């Protein structure tokens, strides 16, 4: 059993390596800017969803307020850069650190809540932060922040002529999020989290410090999501409260993991690779008229997948493997 698990982990790692190499080569053949843009977003959502999955999937604390950390990352980077000239790389780390600390500070009272009370608390906290930023004049209030373009440079993490640097950064981010998850899966934390998810009372009685486990998951998850937010701010070079901290973002972050397979290593990647291109394509082909066809397609898909495959799309692959054996 143990060797089987070790084998699977090694296979996962090799597969991830191969996929990364293939993904890294794709831009050499695909020069279309529109398609590259979709690829960047897909990788970003894969990274975000993978990070969300750590707290909500593995540890079972369903957060529908992760837009808070995404927005914190975006705003920290943008404010430090525009107001104090701090380079985005430092802003990224600062945003991550601030988010991790805030996640633990909020976790302190929130992790006592269970079920829907917890979910609603996460939504409500993100919503309070959104309203406060919308009314914070120094941070641009509802109008947001325009990040001035100072030319192409890795130092300032700004690229106007090509999307490729963003693509490779997003790929690196997705890899990091995946590797962190891969590593945590087989660590003490990983086992604790699954125990907390399945039965917190039993876990507690067996010596798992439930509260600390949740805090750890929240900090890691928030840090990575905030880095994603920093990246997004640089990528779009304009942010406003609604577009980085709105409720929609919390859902968009959760959906790939949910549809791909919540609490699984490959679910978020698979979900993002299918969902994000589909969303973007339906939006540009049928949604341009503003008639909501993209929403109809997207919503129907969510209903059908969640009803037909409660374990997510990864279950299709594992079923086939079971059958082959």
């Amino acid at each position, binding site marked *: 059993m143990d060797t089987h698990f070790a084998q699977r982990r090694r296979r996962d790692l090799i597969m991830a390596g191969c996929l990364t190499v293939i993904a890294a080569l794709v831009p050499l053949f695909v020069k279309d800017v529109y398609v590259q843009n979709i690829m960047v977003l897909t990788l970003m959502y894969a990274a975000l969803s993978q990070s969300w999955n750590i707290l909500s999937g593995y540890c079972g604390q*369903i957060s529908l307020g992760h837009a808070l950390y995404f927005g914190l990352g975006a705003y920290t980077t943008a404010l430090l850069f525009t107001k104090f000239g701090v380079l985005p790389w430092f802003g990224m780390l600062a945003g991550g650190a601030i988010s991790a600390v805030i996640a633990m500070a909020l976790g302190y*009272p929130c992790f*006592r*809540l*269970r*079920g*829907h*009370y917890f*979910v*609603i*608390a996460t*939504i*409500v*906290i993100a*919503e*309070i932060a959104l*309203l*406060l930023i*919308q*009314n914070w004049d120094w941070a641009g209030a509802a109008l947001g922040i325009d990040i001035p373009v100072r030319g192409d440079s890795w130092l300032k993490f700004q690229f106007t002529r090509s999307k490729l640097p963003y693509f490779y950064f997003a790929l690196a981010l997705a890899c990091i999020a995946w590797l962190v998850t891969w590593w945590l899966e087989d660590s003490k934390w990983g086992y604790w989290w699954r125990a907390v998810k399945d039965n917190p009372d039993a876990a507690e009685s067996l010596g798992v410090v439930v509260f600390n486990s949740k805090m750890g998951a929240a900090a890691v998850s928030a840090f990575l999501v905030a880095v994603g937010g920093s990246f997004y701010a640089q990528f779009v070079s304009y942010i406003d409260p609604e577009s980085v901290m709105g*409720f929609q973002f919390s*859902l968009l972050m959760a*959906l790939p993991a*949910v*549809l791909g397979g*919540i609490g699984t290593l490959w679910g978020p990647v698979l979900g993002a690779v299918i969902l994000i291109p589909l969303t973007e394509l339906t939006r540009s082909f049928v949604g341009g008229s*503003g*008639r*909501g*066809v*993209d*929403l*109809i*397609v*997207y*919503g*129907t*898909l*969510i*209903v*059908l997948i*969640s*009803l037909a495959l*409660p*374990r*997510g799309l990864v279950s299709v692959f594992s079923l086939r493997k079971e059958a082959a054996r």
Partner: protein
Amino acid sequence: MTAETIIQSLASGLLMGLLYGLIAAGLALIFGLMDVVNFAHGEFLMIAMYATFFLFAYFAIDPLLAAPLVAAALFVFGAVVYLLVVRFAVRAKANAGMVQIFSTFGLAIVMRGLAQFFFTPDYRSVTHSWLGGKTVSVAGIYLPEPQLVGALVSVVAFIALYFFIHRTDFGRALEATREDAGAVALVGIDKNKVFALGWGLGAALVGLAGAIMAIFFYVYPDVGASFALIAYVTVALGGFGSVFGAFAGGIIVGLVEATTALILPPSLKSVGIYAVYLLIVFIRPRGLFGSM
């Protein structure tokens, strides 16, 4: 700030709060019955408001007369949603909570998309109605008539709901199914039928609320989203599993919102509601009257 302005805003807050209670009643009823949170609840409200608007625009039916028709239409709609979507969601063998959240949430997106497709994203309003724009003055306090009637409808609806749950066979079947869905099958109650009727009833209540909201609020495809979060907070404040908790929750939400609007800029009025929610669940993790 005079005592008069404070009383004035608390009075309108109370009326709005009773309406919030009515909006949330269906959500609380459905949750109490089968532990499912309907994430399309705001969209149920949205189609009720559209139905009211179109009855007014094409048949010149006043929203007050339309209310029972809209409630009846929503009853059918709610039952159909249960039979087509939710029935399968509650059967999920894995990740049951997730499946319920995201299947109803997907439905919400579809409904919003359909509303945009058929009705366009334009803001519409019921331009003139029996109550629209009128106020009554009671002891120097001005109360807007639509909200006043809405509050009365809410109180009547909750009283009716009380008698319905405690005094009728169907109400008893609801209670019994809620307590033990397996055992009721033994005495010949069809669980699916009870759930479908429960969803119908929950949707009819929000239909009633939508008809009244349409008198004084704009109707547009995303209108539900603004009220859905308030409805969830209302139900959770009262405590999941308690229909009458939603009534108390609504009153608290309305009063807190009015108080916040006195102190903070209007754009921050929801912050008060959310903060009070957090405060209450941090002290009482099951809400005020919750059973779980």
